């Protein structure tokens, strides 16, 4: 290939034009054209194979590749009427809810600003500021602990707010929830107290015609669940229970997958909780200013079945005792169950057994830290199982197991065909469906279901490493759930976690609690509507 064989036709050598180039020289210039031929031959061959696979999978499944058909925030209505909202219970959850409604405590704003200054990737403040302005004000506050009541009042008048609306007047503090609800200062109330207070406050609010957003678990006992349901059903108030999974895109998409019957007959669903740190086991901080002087202990334990002397542990770590809540049942089984109920619409099970124990956190609590509950739905030929430990952090997720495929639901959603599937047998034999990896994955915020991806991307999806955006913004599901509640108050409709599903949640959780405490299998009597 040396350059000594140059043919020239006698034209002026000074000509700069390459038309003087020899034929061989031109070949050398264009030598890679055939290589492109090879490239594109292979490329289109691969693409055609991928397209066939993708179309075969999609036509088989009959589920759209795009996001959920109904994305809650897509129905965005401008907040017309201004609403006055009260907050009862301003602990960790109450403060988080009020912030997601647009009122962060000034200290939080400062720490989030500082965090962003130190680490530009910290988006807490940006997420908060990008929230939609819900056109509400926090007008009334009730907490039995002075420090938290003060914090709530400070948050109500915070200057840094989404939408740049400026500071609202400071909320008024009420010592008792009855006074707050009777004051005429609130149109709606957020209840984020311990569970033993939920039913009393909800029923009082409903009787005053005040709309209710109540944290889960809806009630502490079965009877309370009946009472709350009856009160809400006989009123016009809008009731929302705090299960933010109702706003999760992957849960909404999972429902579509179920409706398209992609999994075949589902016989087992497993929901799980694994946590492995004291905070996750409700060993929450005891506030240094907490004392009999700053905490109205007698009011706190008023609805509790057992009255005990003042206890900081019991006040700040109330989830550890059945006097105030139901432990894993009401805190975390309730989330998993509501997710299953949202996706499968299973309702209340026929029977429940439960077991577990206090195996790791032997700190005086009386609720188990390892807990399993098994529910039977004979009408659906289905078992729903919940399994939890607070002393191991292995992630197990929520899995729906069908004869033809399994679906895992977390931040992302993936469906994997079963090796012995009847429905997909032919496609598995033809190599169109690979059972060693998901048939498709759906990642919220992305463009849709994905039937053909690289192993690497699936790995990222499964680890939840990919960020979720909605409309280019990170949005909190708490914010969406509060907004959903306010939208229904203003414009009518049915809130996503309404009283019917809230009642099913409460009864189902209480069945597990009773099965555990009574050491027996309990059943739901659908005629008398009682746990027996």
């Amino acid at each position, binding site marked *: *290939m*040396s*350059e*000594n064989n*140059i043919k*020239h036709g006698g034209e*002026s*050598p*000074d000509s*700069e*034009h*390459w038309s*003087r*180039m*020899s034929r061989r*020289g*031109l070949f*050398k*210039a*264009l*030598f*890679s054209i055939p*290589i*492109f031929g090879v*490239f594109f031959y292979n*490329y289109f061959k691969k*693409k055609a194979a991928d397209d066939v696979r993708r179309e075969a999978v999609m036509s088989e499944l009959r589920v759209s590749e795009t996001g959920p058909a109904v994305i809650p925030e897509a129905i965005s209505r401008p907040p017309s009427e201004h609403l006055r909202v009260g907050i009862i219970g301003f602990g960790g959850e109450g403060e988080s809810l009020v912030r997601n409604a647009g009122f962060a405590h000034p200290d939080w704003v400062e720490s989030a600003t500082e965090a962003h200054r130190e*680490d*530009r*990737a910290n*988006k807490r403040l940006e997420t908060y500021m990008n929230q939609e302005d819900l056109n509400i004000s926090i007008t009334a506050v009730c907490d039995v602990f002075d420090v938290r009541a003060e914090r709530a009042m400070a948050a109500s008048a915070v200057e840094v707010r989404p939408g740049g609306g400026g500071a609202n007047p400071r909320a008024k503090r009420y010592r008792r929830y009855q006074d707050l609800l009777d004051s005429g200062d609130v149109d709606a109330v957020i209840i984020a107290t311990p569970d033993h207070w939920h039913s009393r406050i909800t029923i009082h609010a409903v009787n005053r015609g005040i709309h209710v957003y109540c944290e889960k678990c809806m009630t502490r006992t079965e009877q309370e669940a009946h009472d709350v349901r009856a009160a809400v059903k006989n009123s016009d108030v809008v009731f929302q229970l705090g299960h933010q999974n109702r706003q999760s895109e992957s849960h909404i998409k999972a429902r579509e997958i179920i409706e398209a019957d992609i999994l075949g007959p589902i016989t087992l669903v497993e929901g799980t909780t694994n946590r492995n740190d004291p905070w996750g086991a409700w060993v929450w901080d005891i506030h240094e200013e907490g004392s009999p002087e700053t905490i109205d202990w007698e009011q706190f334990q008023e609805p509790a079945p057992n009255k005990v002397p003042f206890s900081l542990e019991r006040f700040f770590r109330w989830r550890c005792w059945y006097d105030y809540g139901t432990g894993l049942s009401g805190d975390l089984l309730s989330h998993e169950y509501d997710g299953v109920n949202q996706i499968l619409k299973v309702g209340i099970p026929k029977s429940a057994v439960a077991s577990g124990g206090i195996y790791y956190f032997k700190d005086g609590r009386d609720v188990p830290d390892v807990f399993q509950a098994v529910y039977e739905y004979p009408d659906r030929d289905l078992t729903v199982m919940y399994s939890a430990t607070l002393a191991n952090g292995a992630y197990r997720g929520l899995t729906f197991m069908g004869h033809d495929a399994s679906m895992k639901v977390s931040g992302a959603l993936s469906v994997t065909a079963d090796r012995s599937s009847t429905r997909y047998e032919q496609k598995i034999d033809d190599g169109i469906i690979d059972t060693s990896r998901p048939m498709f994955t759906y*990642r919220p915020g*992305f*463009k*849709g279901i*994905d039937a053909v*991806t690289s*192993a*690497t*991307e699936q*790995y*990222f999806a499964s*680890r939840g*490493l*990919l*960020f979720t*955006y909605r409309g*280019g*913004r990170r949005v909190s599901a708490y914010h969406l759930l509060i907004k959903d509640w306010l939208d229904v108050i203003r414009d009518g409709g049915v809130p996503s976690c309404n009283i019917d599903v809230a009642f099913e949640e409460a009864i189902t959780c209480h069945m597990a609690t009773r099965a555990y405490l009574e050491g027996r299998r309990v059943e739901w009597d659908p005629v008398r509507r009682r746990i027996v």
Partner: protein
Amino acid sequence: MRVSVQQYSSFQVTALVALRVLIGWHFFYEGIAKLTNPYWTSAGYLAESQWWFSGLFYSLATNSSVLGVVDFLNSWGLVLIGLGLMLGCLTRAATIGGVVLLALYYIAAPPFAGYTYAMPAEGSYLVVNKVLIELSAMVVLLAFPTGTLFGLDRLIFWKRTPEHQALKQAHA
């Protein structure tokens, strides 16, 4: 020291052009694969970044509009560099672009002792990985250019080609 392209033996030219075309092919397909995959994003890779520049890469991943620009530049950069190397078109610029891109990939996630990544690797790497080797191979291409021997650069830089020089001498 600059090696004149005339001094390459046939074997050297063949080896260098083959290396260039193979790297070009790799870049071109990486780019095409990203452009044609609606789900592709660099977010996962960037979010996993370690070492000195991890903050920068992480912030690219967390800002969705910036991420869009990064993904666009990356996909099209790969396509154009790949085309440049395969066609031998503006080969020098394409090679430099490729070295820069590979350097970014490398410093985003270097396989240093003590760093682990969620993304599974297909081999075992310590300090040296295939990104670094491809980068070095492109530095070799920069040191031993072949665009004016085999490639469209013959037409673009016609006056610099040995053929043109020889023509000129023959007429002198």
